């Protein structure tokens, strides 16, 4: 075997191995046969005024997506904002822990308070996708940012690059993990788990490419904003009546 032959064969072997593994990857993502990502474009609306901070979205998400139950790993979480009369702001995370969920702070100096559900913003200009050294995290055609846990090397650069703290390192797979809009559900026409269980319809999920759905109505009826717009990440999670204190 001369050198040219050797290089040719090497290229052929590498190409065929990567083709086979690419096939495996698609099968593993749990996407049904015949699903056309080009026909969809997913987005989520958050009706801030509807959220009552019950935390069922967090619990459903953890159960649905095998997120570790400890309070350091979240694909979605809820923050409670308290703005006092003197202008100071208090923020805390709604706990999934049963015992502390009951302790509501009694404070007579509260001017206004509200809950803010947070999740991956599925940015159209995602910094996490930009920085991943091996292309393990991608923006899909239907607008969702996904992580391939078989390719991720666990360098955590994406976690550093996310302005929203939406990513964590899964302690079992040792790869980056984040909200997928429940990709395995939405590609089958189901709602994300958090949307499904929300008792007040604070979360509204929809396809921007379909003409009429609750999300389109939500977009028509509200003034909307996104988190940290100055960073130009172009989020697809839209908030109605968002307070300026929220970051």
């Amino acid at each position, binding site marked *: 075997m001369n050198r040219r032959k050797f290089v040719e064969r090497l290229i052929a072997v590498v190409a065929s191995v*990567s083709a086979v593994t690419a096939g495996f990857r698609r099968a593993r993502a749990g996407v049904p046969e015949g699903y056309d990502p080009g026909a969809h474009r997913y987005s989520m609306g958050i009706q801030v005024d509807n959220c009552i901070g019950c935390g069922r979205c967090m619990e459903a998400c953890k159960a649905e997506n095998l997120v570790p139950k400890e309070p350091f790993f979240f694909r979605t979480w809820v923050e409670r904002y308290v703005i006092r009369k003197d202008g100071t702001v208090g923020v805390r995370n709604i706990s999934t822990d049963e015992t502390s969920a009951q302790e509501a702070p009694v404070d007579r100096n509260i001017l206004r308070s509200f809950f803010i559900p947070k999740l991956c913003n599925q940015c159209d200009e995602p910094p996490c996708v930009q920085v991943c050294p091996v292309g393990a995290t991608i923006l899909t055609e239907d607008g969702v940012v996904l992580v391939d846990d078989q390719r991720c*090397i666990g360098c955590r650069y994406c976690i550093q690059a996310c302005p929203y703290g939406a990513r964590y390192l899964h302690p079992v797979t040792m790869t980056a993990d984040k909200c997928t809009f429940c990709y395995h559900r939405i590609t089958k026409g189901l709602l994300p788990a958090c949307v499904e269980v929300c008792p007040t319809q604070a979360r509204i999920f929809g396809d921007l490419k379909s003409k009429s759905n609750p999300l389109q109505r939500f977009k028509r009826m509200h003034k909307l904003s996104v988190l940290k717009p100055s960073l130009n990440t172009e989020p697809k999670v839209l908030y109605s009546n968002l307070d300026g204190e929220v970051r």
Partner: protein
Amino acid sequence: MSNPLVERLAELMGQAMGFIYPNEVEIHWSILVVVYPYLTGLVAGAFILASLVKVFNVKEVQSVYRLAMLTALAFLLIAPLPLLIHLGHPERSYEIFLSPNFTSAMAMFGFVYAWYLMMVLLLEIWFTYRKELVVWSQEKPVPLRWIYRVLALFSRDTSPASVAFDKKMVKAITIIGIPSAFLLHGYVGFIFGSIKANPWWSSVLMPIVFLFSAIVSGIALVIMLYMVITLYRGRTIDMPCLDTMASYLFYAVIVDFSLEFLDFIHRLYESEESIKILSYLVMNKLFISLVVIQVFLGMLVPLGIMVGTRLFRLGAELRKLLYFVAVILIQIGIFATRWNVVIGGQMFSKSFRGLTAYKMDLTGLEGLLTSLVLLALPFVVLAILIRLLPPWEDQAIA
């Protein structure tokens, strides 16, 4: 799940101040990621010092040229180790070479590293030592002779024409090498400086600050090694050489200090959204490592020492002592600089409403002991390299 990680995170959560996002309890880049830019900085700095001789004809530094080159090589060989150990899946690290994502600054790591190792350091060292390698492969006893023959790549030519060619090549490679060294460390700065999510990192000055702090630390390291090894070998220190190195160190520290001061003033004057939390960070979590160690002990005191040695006519012995104190302080200061960038950048919440906590483990893969081993390893490699390729002029073959 009850494991050490969860226990550690529970403890850290208790130490957080103010509000942090729930996923921010874990500090993702640990002490190992501090060690990495520290090591590559030393590589780039040592190489820049060596290139003073070849490109800028600074004759006084000739006697440490080879030592500086070998130092750069020893540190470069170990530099990727902390990163590799830190990965969640080190066994997949080859993906960076096979399927790099070209928009990722980190993906370029493999190429910058390979370029610098293969095209700059190894090549230049080979041309520098080629004649000696040929001679040793004929003179040394049997097992060593074979090693040298392989290292010489079976070259046997020691004619004046070939030696002249070697010299020409060394000069050419050094000229390519200087921008490459800038690339090697400037790029590490870019990895941090390009993260817009993090106001502590996101700065256009970051690559330049990294570069000059690299030059500072590299020159300081070679001065330290030269002094210690000369003492160990029982030779006398070449004072013009030491004074010249110290004066280049002085200039580099001044540039580094000015750049960092500019960055500081700029942030303070612009006073963006993040300024409150960053000031709080500096005055709380980073006060010792930034204000006391990095700025005062690592920069102002050595600057004072070097100004003193230039203003007053001090004896050689006193100068040596002062230089030695200065370079040790500079090493500690530059390590603190890396710490403040890497760890400091993760100690505030991206909500700008609170501070996180970092507790370094003593043992374990990401602990203090691993870091100390990684910091010591380059010296072991350097000892082997010096044994194999003596860099001293008094042992050189004319």
